[in-house]
């Protein structure tokens, strides 16, 4: 088991090599940066955020977000920049529009339907008053 610490060391080294080092003049900017890249979706690996993805494009878009932050752009301006190029798809929380209405309201509709079905089932199975035509014999 003597090799275990060595292995751990090698693995941390590898992990660190994958992380981009970015300098922020203000810790607030850094928080905003991390928040933004968590909220934006990578278009290459569609189930990963910009923060998670190692794709080339994600790297480019991260540096684009970084440059825009340093240039003093607001979060909304940065998000708009990406949406105007890649569409609402880059947002993990797309805005409520006619095209996304089903996406936002669908779960609630399904839940309401489920609740209605459950309610009707329960009402039907609840102890009924004994029916005279069954019990009279």
């Amino acid at each position, binding site marked *: 088991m003597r090799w275990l610490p060595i292995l751990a060391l090698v693995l941390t080294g590898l992990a660190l090599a994958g992380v981009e080092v970015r300098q922020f003049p203000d810790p607030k900017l850094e928080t905003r940066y991390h928040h933004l890249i968590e909220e934006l979706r990578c278009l290459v690996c569609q189930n990963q955020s910009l923060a998670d993805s190692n794709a080339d494009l994600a790297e480019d878009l991260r540096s684009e977000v970084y440059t825009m932050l340093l240039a003093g752009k607001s979060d909304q301006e940065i998000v708009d920049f990406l949406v105007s190029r890649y*569409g609402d798809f880059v947002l993990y929380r797309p805005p409520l529009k006619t095209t996304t209405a089903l996406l936002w309201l669908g779960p609630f509709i399904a839940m309401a339907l489920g609740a209605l079905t459950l309610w009707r089932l329960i009402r039907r199975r609840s102890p009924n008053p004994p*029916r005279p035509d*069954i019990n009279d014999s």
Partner: protein
Amino acid sequence: MGVRLKARLGRHRCRPKIMLKYLLPLGLFAALLILLGIGLTLNPREVPSPLIGQPAPNFTLQRLDDPSQTVSEEIFRGKVSLLNVWASWCLACRQEHPQLMELRKRGEVLLVGLNYKDDRGSALELLERAGNPYQVIAFDGDGKAGIDYGVYGVPETFVIDKQGVIRYKHIGPITPEDWEQKLAPLVRYLEKQP
């Protein structure tokens, strides 16, 4: 015993209700199957572009073959053009290459290349070897113009009308069927527009 039998008979009397009880879940299941089936035929990689109907984004880039000259979106004015985003490292682009050569031969459209995040040397070498289908190629080494065009994978092809407005975006290699069924009818239609 008698009670049970009577109860059963009693239930059989309301037949339509029983039918509904079995048909409803079956119908729901069939609807779900159809929905999932449609989902299977859609390609999640094809993200609709917000640029359709918008003027082609501005760019000023060096020409691939001659860094001293530049290309800009002005080139799209006055003719129907295809802007094909490609790179020498992109395998699917090679698959599409013969189709582009064919288009060049027919000369129906202006074929503009956007050489995306490539190495100038390898790009030129590839064209030397396989042939150059493009009238002009803009060199986008850092991929900034690519970001402005919402490029997220190569190859991608934009159909741009005579006013310089993007009318369609094709994602992935153009197959002969794609050309005949999707792109060619649009190009011919746009050709007739002012």
